[in-house]
């Protein structure tokens, strides 16, 4: 445990744990509304923010937050108003965001694509004191939203039309989800990188689904997996000199595979228990309904 003595490792671990909590916490709502790749889209847009941060010599983390919130809100607006051309508008937003990032960073004095790499794939060991402050504030926001409004976000993500008829402010909640996702992307940017963020939002949720039957359990297991893999990846990268972002993502996928393999016998056992609980020889299933017999007599 000697790595805990280094300040850079303390910062790295704190940032990693916060990402492990927030990414699946937001990701579960995105998966629920079948927008699993939204995080990836926001990641592309955030590159423009990083580029602008370098160009204007402002903090790339805060600049990326601002631009990705803007991008996420635009995506949500496209989803409302755009019908058939929505996907093309999104494609332009994604690739425009990526191209903008490359352009701005090369315009910045002394800037090159090399500066971008640490944001694309993460650079956990270079997380600074001010980065940690920003990550803590943003993570607190994400946790408050995803836990505090869990019933409302669940309802909206499960059935948007129904949620509107219950009088929920659906547009506001959708925007809030988009903004929270954007904030999470920038929280995770330094840890796993913009190109790998989406994996931490989606894969822990998919892995948790292998075991769970309820939304609450899926949420808890996904966050537990998120925290485990981010700590595991960070510590591994300290001992083995491997890139932490890639290690974390590969560990998450390994967790998914392991749980899938584990889940198959569990599901079989559950099915057997269910079959045993049912009264034997339930006749209701195969009886011919009375109405059918009446129809046959008429001889149509």
């Amino acid at each position, binding site marked *: 445990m000697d790595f805990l003595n280094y300040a850079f490792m303390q910062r790295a671990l704190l940032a990693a744990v916060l990402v492990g909590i927030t990414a699946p916490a937001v990701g579960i709502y995105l998966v629920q509304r079948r927008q699993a790749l939204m995080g990836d889209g926001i990641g592309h847009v955030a590159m423009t923010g990083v580029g602008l941060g370098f160009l204007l010599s402002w903090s790339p983390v805060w600049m990326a937050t601002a631009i990705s919130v803007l991008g996420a809100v635009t995506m949500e607006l496209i989803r409302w108003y755009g019908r058939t051309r929505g996907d093309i508008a999104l494609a332009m937003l994604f690739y425009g965001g990526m191209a903008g990032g490359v352009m701005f960073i090369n315009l910045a004095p002394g800037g090159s694509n090399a500066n971008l790499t640490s944001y694309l794939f993460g650079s956990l060991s270079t997380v600074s004191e001010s980065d940690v402050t920003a990550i803590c504030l943003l993570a607190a926001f994400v946790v408050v939203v995803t836990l505090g409004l869990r019933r*409302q976000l669940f*309802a909206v993500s*499960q059935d948007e039309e129904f949620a509107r*008829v*219950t009088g*929920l402010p659906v547009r506001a909640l959708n925007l809030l989800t988009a903004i929270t996702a954007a904030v999470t992307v920038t929280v995770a940017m330094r840890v796993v990188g913009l190109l790998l963020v989406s994996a931490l939002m989606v894969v822990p949720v998919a892995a948790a689904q292998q075991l769970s*039957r309820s939304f609450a359990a899926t949420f808890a297991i996904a966050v537990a997996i998120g925290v485990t893999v981010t700590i595991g990846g960070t510590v591994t990268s300290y001992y083995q000199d491997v890139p932490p972002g890639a290690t974390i993502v590969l560990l998450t996928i390994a967790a998914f595979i392991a749980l899938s393999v584990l889940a198959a016998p569990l599901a079989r056992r559950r099915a057997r228990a269910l079959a045993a609980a049912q009264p034997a020889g339930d006749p209701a299933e195969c009886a011919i*309904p009375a109405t059918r017999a009446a129809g046959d007599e008429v001889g149509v």
Partner: protein
Amino acid sequence: MDASVTGAKAESVSSESVPESVSSDSVPSDSVISLRGVRAELGSRPVLRGIDLTVRRGEVVALLGANGSGKSTAVRTVIGQVPVSAGEVELFGTPQRRFRDWARIGYVPQRTTAAGGVPATVTEIVSSGRLSRTRFGVFRKADREAVRHALDLVGMADRARDNVDALSGGQHQRVLIARALAAEPELLIMDEPMAGVDLASQEVLAQTLKDQVAADTTVLLVLHELGPLEPLIDRAVVLRDGCVQHDGPPPRALGQHALPGHDHVHPHAPAGAEPIRTGLLS
């Protein structure tokens, strides 16, 4: 197909061309839903071409019509999901735009599944129907009891903790109805609640609805055919091509139409045309 199904329906309605309007000129004070001259377009296609529809307190009204006749759109204008291009929509005497008292309405959208992208239990789904009665989504004991009661009403209490993915089509529909009942609404709006529902669930749903009607709930139902709900229905409104074609007692099914799963044969179809086979008898 649309025209022929309507044709078959129209055949069983005694007057084909003259709409039997019950009272669309004067709106009584106890009207729960009131549509007057409502027009709506989807894209640029007119779907509703000036319909009048009044549902009074305690009534059970069925909205019938072929696919594409505008019955789902009519219901969706009531709850504000489809914008109205002309005419007026009122809920409980309040113009729809200013209506905020959503807990009084239980809505069952047209769905074949209650599941989303993440596993959820029956209780979790039904609980979201209770949100309109809570402050900031905080559940109290009474709210949890209401959810349990709603599950009892549809006979799903024993599946409360199960994943909805493990349910049959009819059970999904029962969950969606329990979700609407969780808010203890005065008005139930259901869009094709019997679509894809097995016989056992149809009977449970008919019984649930009967209990609700006995408890003075007002009901507006979109149906493809009356089926097992027929004895409950006070009035049927038949839509055809976005216009009200019949408003009065439910059309009695005659002859072969009385059989569940009869074939729809259009009277004016070219000779030798295949009948539209929809049912068990085909």
